[in-house]
């Protein structure tokens, strides 16, 4: 992180790495685009942003004219020292904040953001000399956002270790970062993408639409014997199911990092 201001959190027996300190920032919406029929990509230019690690999140605070505020957490789809921060926001049917961010926000708007946040659900390249560890990413729906940031950072780091994304999504139109993910597959990076469609598949797809099964998971993920680090992100039900199966399949619980999104 070349021009990033770094500070160090509390040092602990486990060892805390230097991480950019979280703070409040003013973000200008630089661009918006429709990500899926139900989601929008927001590119923010964040004043004073110290950069962020792949997998981190931030809080967005909205303030109404009478002072009422609403704050929500969103995963960040980008990483590195840049002040350009990318979010991809799924519109929740009864949401208060996400419909505003998805449908109302336009280029030039200002938003308050707090971050970068979280130091556990992140991926960092192996230290020089250390053996890189294979990584298995498992996403349900919009849970792909932090995992896309990790996959892109891995490709940028020229890490030779096995790196796979298993991505469960409703329909082909609901795939986030579709062009970018297929670009990662096409590049020379050792990246593999396995898509599971739960509602409808592309024409000619060899499998029927349906929820991922334990058998399909076992086939798609890097075997436990290779000791992958596994990141799982999605709804609570998806994460609980997948994490339980991973443990049953012999993955070390300490090698499975989970992040769930709630209902608001």
């Amino acid at each position, binding site marked *: 992180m070349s021009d990033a201001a770094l500070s160090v959190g509390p040092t602990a027996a486990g060892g805390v790495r230097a991480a950019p300190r979280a703070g409040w920032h003013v973000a200008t919406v630089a661009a918006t685009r429709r990500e899926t029929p139900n989601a929008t990509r927001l590119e923010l230019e964040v004043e004073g942003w110290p950069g962020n690690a792949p997998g981190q999140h931030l809080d967005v605070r909205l*303030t109404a004219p009478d002072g009422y505020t609403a*704050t929500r957490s969103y995963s960040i789809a980008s990483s590195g020292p840049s002040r350009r921060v990318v979010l991809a926001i799924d519109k929740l049917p009864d949401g208060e904040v996400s419909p505003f961010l998805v449908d109302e926000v336009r280029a030039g708007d200002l938003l308050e953001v707090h971050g970068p946040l979280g130091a556990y659900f992140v991926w960092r390249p192996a230290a020089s000399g250390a053996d890189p560890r294979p990584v298995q990413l498992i996403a349900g729906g919009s849970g792909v956002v932090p995992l896309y940031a990790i996959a892109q950072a891995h490709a940028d780091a020229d890490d030779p270790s096995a790196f796979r994304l298993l991505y469960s999504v409703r329909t082909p139109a609901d795939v986030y970062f579709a062009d970018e993910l297929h670009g990662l597959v096409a590049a020379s990076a050792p990246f593999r993408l396995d898509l599971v469609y739960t509602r409808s598949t592309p024409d000619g797809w060899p499998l029927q639409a349906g929820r991922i099964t334990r058998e399909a998971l076992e086939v798609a993920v890097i075997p436990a014997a290779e000791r992958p680090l596994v990141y799982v992100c999605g709804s609570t039900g998806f994460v609980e199911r997948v994490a339980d199966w991973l443990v049953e399949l012999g993955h070390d619980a300490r090698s499975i990092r989970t992040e769930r999104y*709630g209902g608001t």
Partner: protein
Amino acid sequence: MSFITRGFSGRSRERDDRLPPGQTLVHDFPVLSAGPTPDVDTADWEFTIRTESGEHRWSWDEFMALDIEDVSTDIHCVTHWSKLGTSWRGVSLDTLFADVETEQEYVMAHSYGGYTTNIPLDELLDGKAWIAFEFDGEPLDPEHGGPARLLVPALYFWKSAKWVRGLEMMDQDEPGFWEQNGYHLHGDPWKEERYW
């Protein structure tokens, strides 16, 4: 530095005095966990308090024979949701510490699965914390920390360690799992002690 967000009016004006700043009322029960949910059988479960002078230990049956309290309380998660008036049953930390002699003032809670969180002892005593095993009249679900979790409602809910298996007394405050990973050492929701 707060400013008005263009076009945002918000949905609800029923601001409840019981909601700390930055919190939103929810009616479901979201889950925040760093990893898989451990499978803990009450036949194998035990709870320990370790001090400078020794260890106190309870099996599940011994634990269930202690004084059990009904607790009604609000809970606040650092990820901006709160629930009001939740009902729990559990054993007060005052009961568990009744025969514990210690000069040490800080506690590290340890969980099945390896999770840890730190809390000052005086924020666990005098009716402020429980080991809870029932939520809403039902045994606590594993994904919410069953068979038993710490319940410290005055602090953000990551301090209420799920799948708790013991408390270790410490001479000084040291960060637990989330505290090493970006969350505040203390975690008072009314002061918005979310992150360091």
